[in-house]
């Protein structure tokens, strides 16, 4: 949860107060948030292309989103989709290893990539005179990947260090990494995206070739271009560099597993040698993100619970009762079944049970009692403001489009969710929490510090 690509904030075109900044009190009026005017087309080989023109800055964001994530890891190869993502920066037929950095960082741009449960995305921002270069390079690694054994092994070692850094050396890494394995019984979401050292060690170069052939194909990808470009020129370059790439005759494998409804509450314990304070996390299954009639009210519920110091969980657990050091709630919407997650890291001197009780109390209260209109307005304004912040950059707009298209199921969500958010009512919040949370079964994970050796934590011996 901590490192995974997170859903972008919901969009909102809320009625705000007018921009007459110097004459308070302000007159009420509409502050309209312009919709994202994107252009969509699909090449004959199935490549989806989304573009948003904006000439405010002569930079351009180029992103490739693939419908493949850790849910598609091969059997016995947890973490493979993510390892593969790293290898896409190694050699291709016409590029040497790290040439992507030469074409981005070295000319004043940047690049990165991330892997989630459902998608893998590769993103660059470059001065706009490098658009053609980057389109060529993305087409090249889609069609001509050519990793050698030496680079494979060295990059696998990097990913193993990433595992150690995010899971082992992060005091709460083991907790967040345990959420998916304990929350799903059948669905491959139960595999952590980062995988395990053993499975990473078992991966081979042949796995890389097979994975590329299976999932890296034009009909399984979306190209997103945002920023300073000429639309006709973009279309011509996209046709030139991507149009020839053949669409394989075979179908893209799809996850068929159906996560069953939970029949009872479950509880697990995870221990940590380095965490200074205990923690507790509770999860419930929620419908796919594309089910926006339910997923948007769930986002609002999570924001009511945990966004900011005035949120319900912070006020109860951290401020009034002072049993928690940190609290959070998240509606983690996915292509398949997602999770509603509530968690707390305990304050010194408190046990997980104290926080767990209060988490449940606050959620039940929210699900059953009246919600003040001012509080509902508050979270809508918070979500709108964070969306506006994201839209300050071409890259932020491209991310919003990718999320809408690949996770929420349609790029149009980037605009329609605005209205949907504005219309979320108290009844909607009650309905979804009653259906998916308080009326359903939970998985609870207690996270307990445990000294590394038989010596007590306070009195470790100096010599070893």
């Amino acid at each position, binding site marked *: 949860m901590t490192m995974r690509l997170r859903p972008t904030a919901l969009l909102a075109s809320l009625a705000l107060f007018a921009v007459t900044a110097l004459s308070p009190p302000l007159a009420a009026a509409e502050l309209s948030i312009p919709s994202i005017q994107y252009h969509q087309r699909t090449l004959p080989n199935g490549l989806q292309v989304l573009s948003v023109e904006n000439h405010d800055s*002569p930079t351009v964001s180029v992103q490739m989103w693939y419908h493949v994530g850790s849910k598609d890891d091969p059997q016995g190869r947890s973490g493979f989709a993510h390892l593969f993502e790293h290898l896409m920066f190694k050699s291709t037929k016409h590029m040497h290893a790290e040439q992507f950095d030469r074409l981005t960082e070295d000319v004043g741009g940047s690049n990165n990539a991330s892997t989630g449960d459902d998608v893998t995305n590769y993103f660059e921002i470059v001065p706009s005179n490098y658009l053609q270069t980057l389109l060529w390079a993305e087409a090249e690694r889609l069609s001509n990947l050519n990793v050698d054994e030496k680079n494979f092994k060295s990059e696998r070692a990097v990913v193993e260090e990433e595992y150690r850094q995010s899971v082992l*050396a992060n005091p709460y890494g083991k907790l967040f990494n345990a959420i998916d394995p304990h929350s799903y019984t059948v669905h491959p979401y139960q595999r952590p995206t980062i995988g395990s050292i053993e499975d990473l060690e078992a991966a081979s170069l042949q796995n890389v070739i097979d994975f590329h052939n299976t999932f890296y194909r034009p009909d399984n990808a979306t190209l997103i271009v945002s920023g300073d470009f000429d639309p006709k020129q973009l279309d011509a370059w996209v046709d030139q560099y991507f149009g020839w790439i053949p669409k394989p005759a075979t179908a893209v494998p799809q996850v068929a597993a159906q996560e069953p409804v939970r029949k009872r509450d479950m509880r697990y314990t995870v221990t940590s040698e380095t965490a200074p304070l205990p923690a507790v996390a509770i999860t419930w299954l929620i419908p796919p993100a594309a089910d926006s009639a339910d997923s948007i009210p769930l986002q609002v519920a999570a924001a009511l619970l945990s966004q900011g*110091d005035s949120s319900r969980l912070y006020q109860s657990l951290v*401020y009034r009762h002072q049993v928690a050091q940190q609290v959070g709630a998240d509606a983690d919407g996915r292509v398949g079944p997602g999770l509603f997650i509530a968690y707390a890291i305990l304050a010194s001197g408190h046990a997980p049970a104290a926080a767990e009780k209060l988490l449940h109390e606050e959620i039940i209260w929210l699900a059953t009692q009246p919600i003040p209109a001012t509080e509902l307005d508050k979270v809508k*304004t918070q979500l709108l403001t964070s969306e506006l912040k994201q839209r300050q950059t071409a890259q932020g707009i491209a991310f919003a489009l990718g999320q809408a298209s690949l996770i929420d199921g349609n790029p149009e969500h980037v605009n329609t969710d605005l209205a949907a958010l504005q219309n979320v009512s108290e009844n909607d919040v009650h309905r979804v929490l009653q259906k998916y949370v308080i009326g359903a079964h939970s998985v609870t994970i207690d996270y307990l510090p445990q000294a590394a050796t038989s010596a007590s934590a306070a009195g470790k011996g100096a010599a070893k």
Partner: protein
Amino acid sequence: MSRHVKVIRLAVFMAMLMTAVGASTAMASAADFPATPPAPGPAPKLSVPTPSTQTLANGLQVISVRRAGLPLVTAQLVLHGGGEMDPPQLAGLADLTANLLSKGAAGKTAPQIAAAVEALGGSLSAAAGWDQSAVGVTVTTPKLPQALGLLAEVARQPDFSAAELKRAQAQAIDDLRLSLSRPTALASLAVGRSVFGDGAYGHSRSGTPASIARIRRNDVQHLHDALYRPDNAILILTGDVTPEQAQQLAQNSFGDWRKPAAPLPPRPVGMAASHVPAILLIDQHGAGQAGVVVAHAAPPRNDADYYVGIVANAVLGGSYSARLNEEIRIKRGLSYGASSRLQALGDAGMWLAAAQTKNPSAPQVVELVLGEFKQLGSARVSADELAARKATLIGSYGNSLETTAGLAEQVGELAIHGVKLEQIGKYIEQVQAVTPKQIEKYAAKHLDADGSKVVVVGDAAQFGAAIHQAHPHAVLLESSALDLDSTSLQPAAAASKIIAR
């Protein structure tokens, strides 16, 4: 999972037209796919908005930078003086004071303030840096007057009630326990003491469990009285706001803030003698990785060679493709990321390089980092490498200016160090002017091997002996024996716990 440690935001460049090439037709087959990347068109130039400055009658400096487009504004109130002002036994006082501002003020309780600012769509963030304290908020333009009203209340009339102080202390101590359990965070803290010694930048800016517990209400009030005054403050407004609006908004919320008669407090000396071993190993038993940190003293922000230092750091470890990451991650797979930064403060500075690696690799990573510091002063950077790293630096500088919050931060950095604000538009030419010879000279002067400070935190059973063999002066300390309140990091009474091997 990100491939790189950071996602970087995009750059602001002056608009230019695309040079359209002749329309191409789609290729028929792989054989037609070009074997080399298409060449770029002409390079665009960076354009940076110009800050406007005004000063109110009470001495408050008001800086605004206009960027219309989206209806967003960031407001930051910045005060000269931060962690450097912490009294010797009260590490963390400035940070705790900033944190307490919004926990009750002007007749509103902490929950009421949080509810009020969050109803505007923002959240108040307050913290102390070394040279400054700051409280700020980002909101949509129509909410700005109300947000500034709240900002003024918390900065000018905080309660510092006993109950909130107690709550904040308990939270700060738990925060510290969390951050000190991360190997690189602990190593960075220790190396600060190693570089700055008894100076004002040497202690833990967020305090220690013991120092936080010692803080009394009077200490907080006294620091607030000393720093939070209009003639010591800068109000920065960036985004959808004109200079005229900024002036009037500042006047409305801060115009009647009275300047006290007392003189401003003197600034302390940042760096002094160090009592920390040059190579310190801290055993954090069971740690999943080792945090390796290597630091050097650096010149202050206003040093004439500041930009040489910035470019030198870009070569050493400022980005993914810089030398440290190239050697440690890309070539050897020893870490998820290795990087360095140059922290140039008001009265002194520090170079800090860091990487996390599996415990048994720590000795190798220490040598690689030391080797790269040395290399910078012993061999001239090639023209190609320098051009690439300058481009990265300039690109990410542009990125940092693209959001209202990033713009406010950059302007604040200049203002707090008394740098002319027009420098915000001269960054590129200053960076471009740096030569390989200057870098070599700078490194020879500031980064000699004798000045290296090394701290490694991790499961020392897996690296202690090897590092000690290469560096016989290395000192090993149990994390339970580490005394963050002591300028030597070692309690005098517990010297017997120190084991060199």
